């Protein structure tokens, strides 16, 4: 894989046809990755509605008044069809798209589609040979079915935020849409399980999930440990040392295990770290503020990337806090052709991350060997 070559991500060479019925972040992300696998994706959008992706930030353009970045990203490479429930021709077109589909991703509750004039049982009949995935925020029934949801709400309700942040401060979310995105990954799993089953047996199948269930799936350890009677972790109790320290040009994620403590002291090169107060993980945790200040006396004079190289030279599994600018300039990402270009109308030429996998065959290895 060279820096100039396009990354090989196609895994579904027959190009399955995927229909997204409605659009949420999670369903759109699943469709996006299916597109990178080689699927042809058609978005069916109810006429006259503002789609969720169009309401999310950040917005593009100099004044921030351009299109919503999540929408541009997750719709890239997909076709779009507008659906008007009141139009017989539009319904016929939807039926045709569904009849041709290998995968249908339905976003939103049965009740919300009924309110739009669409019976999901009719959709399932029309797409009789497809793998059908249905994803809702909270489930298609139950006490929360009509509640609103978003990334913050999911991080709160699913146990995530209780573990993130400092012990003496309030819970804090992770930025971006990590849980809605991960829900999309689990929807993608469901699609591929269904497609595999169809390839093996010729039989179609369907699944349901909710973003809430996806969060419970992702934050699975606390419930597991709790049942054993062990203490429940709280935020800020990682015990490894300062989470991030200042450098001359940003921050460094100072992760190390007890066995790397001596190597970490070498990196910092401050004899005061030999003090017995910092000798054990427990004592380091007890004196964390003091330790952080001591670390930062040195790290604040260093660049975060120099610190990264010095830590890695000693096999310390630590890394710098990479900004988007850092990532766009990353030699590792460039060497692996991770970014691909996109032209955003009225805004300019930008970059998108590709799928995080690369496919190689024996022929590829032979060609690389010959090059």
């Amino acid at each position, binding site marked *: 894989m060279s820096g100039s070559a396009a990354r090989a991500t196609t895994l579904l060479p027959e190009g399955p046809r995927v229909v997204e019925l409605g659009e949420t972040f999670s369903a759109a992300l699943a469709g996006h990755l299916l597109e990178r696998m080689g699927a042809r994706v058609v978005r069916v959008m109810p006429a006259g509605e503002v789609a969720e992706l169009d309401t999310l930030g950040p917005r593009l353009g100099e004044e921030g008044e351009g299109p919503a970045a999540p929408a541009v990203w997750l719709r890239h490479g997909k076709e779009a069809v507008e659906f008007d429930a009141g139009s017989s021709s539009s319904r016929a077109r939807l039926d045709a798209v569904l009849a041709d589909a290998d995968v249908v991703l339905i976003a939103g509750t049965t009740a919300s589609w009924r309110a739009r004039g669409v019976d999901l049982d009719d959709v399932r009949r029309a797409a009789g040979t497809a793998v059908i995935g249905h994803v809702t925020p909270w489930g298609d029934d139950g006490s929360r079915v009509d509640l609103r949801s978003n990334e913050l709400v999911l991080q709160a309700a699913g146990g995530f935020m209780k573990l993130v*942040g400092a012990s003496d401060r309030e819970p804090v979310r992770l930025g971006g849409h990590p849980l809605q995105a991960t829900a999309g990954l689990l929807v993608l799993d469901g699609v591929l399980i269904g497609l595999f089953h169809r390839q093996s047996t010729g039989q179609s199948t369907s699944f349901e999930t909710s973003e809430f269930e996806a969060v419970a799936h992702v934050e699975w350890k606390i419930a597991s440990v709790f049942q054993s009677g062990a203490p429940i972790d709280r935020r800020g109790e990682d015990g490894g040392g300062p989470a991030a320290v200042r450098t001359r040009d940003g921050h460094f994620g100072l992760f190390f295990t007890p066995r790397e403590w001596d190597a970490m002291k070498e990196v910092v090169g401050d004899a005061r770290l030999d003090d017995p107060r910092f000798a054990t993980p427990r004592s380091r945790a007890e004196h964390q503020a003091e330790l952080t200040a001591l670390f930062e006396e040195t790290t604040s004079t260093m660049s975060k990337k120099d610190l990264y190289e010095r830590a890695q030279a000693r096999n310390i599994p630590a890394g710098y806090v990479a900004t988007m600018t850092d990532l766009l300039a990353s030699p590792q990402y460039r060497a692996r052709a991770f970014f691909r270009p996109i032209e955003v109308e009225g805004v300019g030429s930008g970059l998108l991350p590709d799928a995080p996998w690369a496919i190689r065959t024996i022929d590829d290895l032979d060609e690389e060997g010959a090059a």
Partner: protein
Amino acid sequence: MSGLLHGLKVADLSIVTAGAASTQVLADFGADVVKVEGGTRPDLYRMGFTGDKGGSSDLSFPPFRVANRNKRGLAVDLKTPEGHEIARRLIAQSDVVVENFRRGAIERLGLGFRELAAIRPDIVLVSISSQGATGPRRGFTSFGITLDSLGGIQSLSGYDADTPTWSSGRINYPDQTANSLAPAVILAAVMASRADGQARWVDMSQRETVTSLLGEYILATSLGAPDPQPDANNAPGAPGWVSRCRGADEWIAVSLETPADRSRLAGVVGADTGDDDALRRATDAWAESRDRDAAAAELRAAGLAAAPVVSGHELLDDPDLNARGWWQSVDLPDGGTERQRGPVVRFAENAPLVRSRAPHVGEHTAEVLAELDYTAAEIDDLLARGVVSHPQTTTRN
């Protein structure tokens, strides 16, 4: 009926959660997943990894039991010629080999992609690694949360620009993204190789996985926007916060996505719509004397996007998850049962999700070797010479 992945055979060399929790998903849906470990060097996650939660036996650590349920255990020393031959026979019967060793380790075992393809021409090798199998940083080491830093999400998480915050060692978000994505990629690769008979090597980078889910920010910055900064519980264009409720460390979260939300919230907490800071102060004052769940219910009843900030163990009693039969009852090794996480998605048709608890080290060694055409005498000989091993209980030093 059998599982939806019936007929899929997985030689599972993966460890900890980025790898092992990926193959757990395959095992849940009926794939035959053989967990290959060294008898004296098993998956380090068995003992709790950081040593903080492990117990005295190889199945004491609860998260290990989750990530390895429904698998069979084969204990073999792959560095011996006889052990290598066992691996060759297993791979010849497998659709896919999954590994997440440090780069170069699989090749040093003589099980690199070329060797695997020579054993089975349509084999799929899935390598889940820190930064991928190529590039100048391919040999760099990391733990899961290191990739919060290197993957970019830490740069936009935290209270403010001075407090970039990672997902915590317990959540380890980068490992969870990897094990959420990998099952789909594994299945797609096997489908492709079954279709054309060609071997494939799937090179999956955990760092890239984290960044790949930040596409909106990569795009914006590539178009000239400044780097995003940590902004507490706000989202772009949608202020949010948590307010403390009655009790120790009890909170509710609320976000304001529209102008109407501000009016709704002001109505509930008895404030002027004013500015968002004033609304937040009023919400804090309103919440501090209320029970968390009651406060969240009141905000939700007003049509707001709000939720109690719960701990993961509270989900064991969640009425919706329980009504859907989401939690799975799994046998404990010494009797009794525990509840483990449910499926990635709920299929209308699938065999029961859980067929067996996680295996002891080498629990199915004899069974697997017999399927690989070893005779009983050969198995006894391999056991006697320590090439393979039986079930055992390991003890922490």
